[in-house]
């Protein structure tokens, strides 16, 4: 079968003043539509850079990236991105923020309102439509970010440590909700995180990154049944295995 997402020997080098920084080297991987993939690794290992490449916000220095059968050339209409610092427009109400991606592609106002309502309901933001971002909690802001990303029906949802700045309880709640939404929408998710537990809880497949230059150190399939039990021995075993993989790099530091 053809892959939804395919990376062939992708590399990314940032030109620097004194020396170049090689952020990614020899990234090869592919996945089918509807997979939930976590990019796991410590900071500076290129996982966010990879996400920016898929989002079309950065250009690769070498290699080929194919999304939905097309070679990637700038931001793709098939992908939507959610940032850790939520990226909400502070001067727009929740409603306007959720509508923005649709507005950007010229969706008529009536349709925007209707679709926005659908995703505002889905992310439990009903009643907060006319609030401004500064009036919302961190968790609610992130829901707005997710709702906004979903409105255009993206085939790929790119999430850059979306829950990284949230407290543990809010985080757990949003993880559950994300899984529920993913099961409904069946969009491919690329999810960047540095939390091992989060990766094991969410992913079908975990790409473990190692730094300098950023590359995929391991590609691990997660076969645990859903909903996953974080207390189960299988969960703990996999988490331990991942910790060993990630710590292997620390010896080099």
């Amino acid at each position, binding site marked *: 079968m053809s892959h939804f997402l395919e990376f062939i020997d992708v590399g990314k080098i940032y030109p620097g003043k004194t020396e170049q920084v090689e952020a990614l080297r020899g990234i090869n991987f592919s996945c089918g539509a509807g997979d939930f993939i976590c990019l796991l690794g410590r900071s500076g290992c290129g996982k966010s850079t990879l996400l920016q490449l898929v*989002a*079309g*916000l950065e250009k690769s220095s070498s290699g080929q990236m194919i999304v939905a059968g097309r070679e990637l050339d*700038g*931001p793709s*209409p098939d*992908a*939507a*991105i959610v*940032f850790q*610092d939520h*990226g909400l*427009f*502070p*001067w*727009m109400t929740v409603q306007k923020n959720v509508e*923005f*991606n649709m*507005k*950007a*592609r010229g969706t008529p106002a009536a349709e925007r309102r209707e679709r926005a309502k659908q995703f505002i309901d889905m992310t439990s933001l009903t009643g907060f439509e006319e609030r*401004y*971002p*500064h*009036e919302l909690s961190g968790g609610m802001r992130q829901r707005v970010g997710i709702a906004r990303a979903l409105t*255009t029906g993206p085939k790929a949802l790119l999430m850059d440590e979306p829950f990284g700045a949230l407290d543990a309880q809010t985080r757990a709640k949003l993880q559950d909700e994300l899984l529920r939404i993913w099961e409904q929408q069946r969009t491919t998710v690329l999810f960047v995180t540095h939390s091992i537990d989060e990766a094991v809880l969410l992913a079908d497949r975990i790409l473990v990154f190692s730094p300098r230059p950023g590359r995929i150190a391991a590609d691990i399939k997660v076969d645990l049944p859903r909903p996953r039990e974080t207390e189960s021995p299988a969960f703990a075993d996999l988490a331990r295995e991942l910790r060993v993989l990630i710590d292997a790099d620390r010896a080099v530091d």
Partner: protein
Amino acid sequence: MQLRRALGLLPLALLLIAWQVAVELEVYPPVLLPPPVKVLMVFVDDWSTVMANAAASISRVVTGITLSFLVAVPLGLMIGRYKLLDTMTDWSIQIFRSIPPIALIPLAILFLGIGDKPAIALIFLAGLWPLLINTIFGVRNIERTLIKVARAARASEMLVMRDIVLPASLPSIFTGLRLAVGGGWLTVVTAEMIAVKSGLGYMILNAQLTFRSDLIFAGIIVIGAIGLMADQAIRVVRGYVCRWQEGLNSVPE
């Protein structure tokens, strides 16, 4: 809160008392230093003169600053957004903003004659630079994630300018407007002493020639009061237009 606000009147009250005391002690003869009551009477006896001149000054400032707003804001948005324009204009802006508009009065009279034209031209220049510089500053300080969100959503440049760059810069534009109106007000009074035959500047200079020191004092009070009211008015408008900003700024103005 209201009571605290009244504290702002304290220095003014002290000044008034000091003035009255100086009059009682006859530090200067009454023809030079009129008692406060006599100055107050100016607002009764010469009300129409004072108001007509104040209206002339205000209309010049409104016209001049409106013109600088219409030029500086679009230009500033462009310069802030496009690096090439910034490089092109940076030195010129730094040079021209260092020239006090007052220094251009002789030229303004040579080219534009005596009347409204030179005064408005000078106010335009006085307002142009602070508005331009603050607009550019506002655009430069837009959170980078917000621009990324727009790019990932494939928003048109028109939409980015209107829905992101402009609103994000508004708080800074209002700072520029406050400085511009302040500068414009200083300029109009000076310009009226030389280049025009009406307005508060003309009125107090003329009062000096006719030994009406009470009218001079009254004029100065009106100039200060209008300056305060203009500034307060801009703050109120800013508070409304930038209400989304509430709570984002922890530092009170």
